[in-house]
């Protein structure tokens, strides 16, 4: 974007929009203890309490909080991370449309690790191997192709992969601009340009 000189790669912090969105993805849970007066959270049930045995999809942040200490709920992995999909990903990692499958695949996957129980090791391996398998083609398309191809490619990437892809695109464009001997030209600030465009479209 602007004149940023320090571009670290994605590293979640308390304030990360990405991380907040990823932890909002749903996880299938079953209540192992009764939660008094919270029946209203279950849209299908009509009782005052959330009874033991109630099955409910909870956002990941809540599932983790309830599963961790007092085991108020037990969790299942969302279907993208279960065996059937794991097999598909293993067989053809590079081709899968990860964005459709789970837009925050790697981030959600990492948050699910503590909930995965004995499947944790397999899940961990799946995350690392899937990214490793897909990196080559992400690199090649982001650093090489025309804008059209790049657009198609980008639509099948998860959020984290997209940020890598855009990083590569930026380098590609920077080098093209440099080769055309125009990189040194001082340009209008990005925000000023955007602002003027908006103003212009409002006027006309």
């Amino acid at each position: 974007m602007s004149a940023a000189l320090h571009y670290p790669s994605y590293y979640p912090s308390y304030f990360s929009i990405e991380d907040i969105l990823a932890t909002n993805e749903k996880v299938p849970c079953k209540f192992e203890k009764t939660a008094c007066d919270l029946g209203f959270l279950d849209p299908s049930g009509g009782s005052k309490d959330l009874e033991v045995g109630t099955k409910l999809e909870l956002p990941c942040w809540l599932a983790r909080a309830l599963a961790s200490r007092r085991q108020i709920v037990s969790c299942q992995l969302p279907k993208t991370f279960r065996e059937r999909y794991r097999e598909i990903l293993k067989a053809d990692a590079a081709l899968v449309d990860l964005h459709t499958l789970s837009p925050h695949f790697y981030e959600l996957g990492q948050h699910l690790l503590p909930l995965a129980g004995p499947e944790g090791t397999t899940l961990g391996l799946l995350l690392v191997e899937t990214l490793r398998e897909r990196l080559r083609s992400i690199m090649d398309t982001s650093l090489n192709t025309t804008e059209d191809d790049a657009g198609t490619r980008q639509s099948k990437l998860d959020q984290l992969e997209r940020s890598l892809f855009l990083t590569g695109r930026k380098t590609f464009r920077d080098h093209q601009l440099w080769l055309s001997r125009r990189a040194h030209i001082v340009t209008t600030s990005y925000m000023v340009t955007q602002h003027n465009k908006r103003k212009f479209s409002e006027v006309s």
Partner: protein
Amino acid sequence: MLSEKALELIKELDRSKDGKLPAFNEDIIRKVLEEMNTLFQQNQRDVGEAAAGEIRYFPSIHLRHAALDRNKRCLLAYLYNRLERIRAMRWEFGSILPADIRANLCEPETQWFNRYNKNLASYMRSLGEAGGLDLTQDTKPPKNLYVEVRCLRDYGEWEVEEGDTVVLQKDTTHYLPLAACHHLIRQGVLEQVE
């Protein structure tokens, strides 16, 4: 689900990337704060019961507490990410923001912007011994002392260097020292042609 309102704030920022700043959403913030106070009061009540030996209230207390933390995180992340964008604007627009952008800031954000401005200015002034260094200039490695520029809008008379003025009229071209006209290029008054 709990904390859904708070997430709306985050989604709003996620939708308006590209450094844009949507209007400060005081309405949702108030609703989130209300939800937090309700959750807190319910927990106060149940904690009282639990202290009296009713351990069956623990799961609900725990759940509400998680929601309270989540709400707090979303609220602070909302404020933080907005400030990051406002901070970037100082470097892009300069110390005075366009009116329509200013309108999207709430009063405390405007105050924060002014404080940021002041802090930055006094830092830049403190550099070296002869009046400091303007870090918003020199954004690209220099090539030539003089550049050819085209005027994108009427700007009027402008002093290039001491005692040396030009009239910047739309569509006129000039040959000017880059160091002097850098900020006019960044602000979209001039365009460097080559």
